[in-house]
């Protein structure tokens, strides 16, 4: 039975590795760091499971762990990511925005999504890119479902304004 736990875990890692990498890249804007954090997220989660703890929703647990690792990383290295630059008032000029739109690819799309301030962008990201339910987003971000619903509503409105 226990070896079943191992197999299920490895299968889950395989299923979610890409999505978690995407989320990690969205949060850090650094490919190498993003990969390291995904691996660390898997290791930590397994430590938790191997110690006999149960996790109800492994997928949400992964995102939550990864989110915490990103925060730890900021604290540790004080690394500058776009996430921070945007928070700190960095803004992309309109002409740059147009340029970016012309050459849209994944990472540039992330930059555009981050035109929203982070609380909104996170919720929009988890909902529309990763298709998480409001309940799961609440678990990942450690917020109430109502708060998530409100941010989602406002976030979408802002998105509309920005990109219509």
């Amino acid at each position, binding site marked *: 039975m226990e070896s079943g736990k191992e*197999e299920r875990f*490895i299968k889950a*890692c395989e299923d979610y590795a*890409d999505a978690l990498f995407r989320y990690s890249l969205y949060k850090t804007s650094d490919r190498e760091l993003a990969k390291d954090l995904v691996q660390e997220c898997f*290791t930590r989660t*397994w430590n938790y499971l191997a*110690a006999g703890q149960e996790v109800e929703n492994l997928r949400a647990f992964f995102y939550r762990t990864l989110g915490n690792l990103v925060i730890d990383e900021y604290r540790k290295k004080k690394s500058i990511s776009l996430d921070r630059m945007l928070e700190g008032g960095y803004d992309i000029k309109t002409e740059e925005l147009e340029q970016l739109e012309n050459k849209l*690819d994944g990472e540039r*799309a*992330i930059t555009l999504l981050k035109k929203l301030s982070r609380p909104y962008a996170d919720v929009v990201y988890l909902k529309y890119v990763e298709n998480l339910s409001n309940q799961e987003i609440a678990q990942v971000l450690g917020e109430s479902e109502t708060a998530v619903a409100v941010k989602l509503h406002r976030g979408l409105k802002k998105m509309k304004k920005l990109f219509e």
Partner: protein
Amino acid sequence: MEKFEKIINNIKEISLTPEDKARILGSVVSYVRETPVREPGVVKRRWHILPAVVMLLVVMLGGGISMAANDALPGDFLYPVKVSVNEKMETWIALSAEADAKVEAKHAEERLEEAEELAVRGEIKAEVKEEVKANFKKKAARARALAEELKAEGKLETSARLNSEFESVLVAHERILSDISESDDDDQEEINEIRGEVGGYLSAAAEARARNESEIAGGVSVNVTAAAREALQAALEKIEEVEGYIESHPKGNTRPEAIARLDDSREILLQGRGRLESGAYGEAFILFQRAYRMAQETKLWLNIQNSLQVERKENMEKENDGEDKEIRVEVEVE
């Protein structure tokens, strides 16, 4: 909201490269294997040996005898301590069947290293040979039995890996024993007897490995994908390691052959990658395992070749000097 959808879709396309994904999953699989779920049953089963372990620790700390015994050879005063105290303790503290099998295989290999060391020193007498042979048989049989047990438990990939690793060790030692036997007329008979024993276990390990592999290739196990990725990672690391090893031993006429052998191993790895990409995970697993084995054999072979060259040189000096120097072959095996 067309632009918004475009943005979301573009983000959704971000993914890991297959190499990065394989690397991450490979290390996850290894980590999960090294960090088993805490099973109360296993811990309980081992409790009865605790007093013995404590006693042995006291012995170790008290006299350092067992530490000193680690270098003992058959016929030495401390050799029984090495085999019946130190090695038994290593077996006790190996908590999983896999760790247990690795320890037994390591001990079997140590018996061969001892035999080689004695043979090069010219000290392999009939009774010592019997002792080495009996001990090797015991350890090798146990390693095999554990690999079979794991297979019966459904851990086919682990079993295949253990057989494969043991096989590469046996191949290298078989080759080296044959080398020694050719150059040593006095002890030829003794060495060949040990060689025969090694050969028997070698074909058994190779057969078991081939059986496991064909079952894996048949795709009966759900674990194949993960196993293939782990095997790829292991083979990549091994090839890199052996490359570094060859680089650090630039001299000697064995080098070109080692490089050629490593190139063969890379070629097999490449074929494996092709299989992996086309989704033939079972075949990919087999090829990665083979690439790993070839690289590992190359390292062992080069290592022992180098040691023997040093040894022969020293032996010649010894004959010229007429001094009774102690000569040791350092066989470093991973």
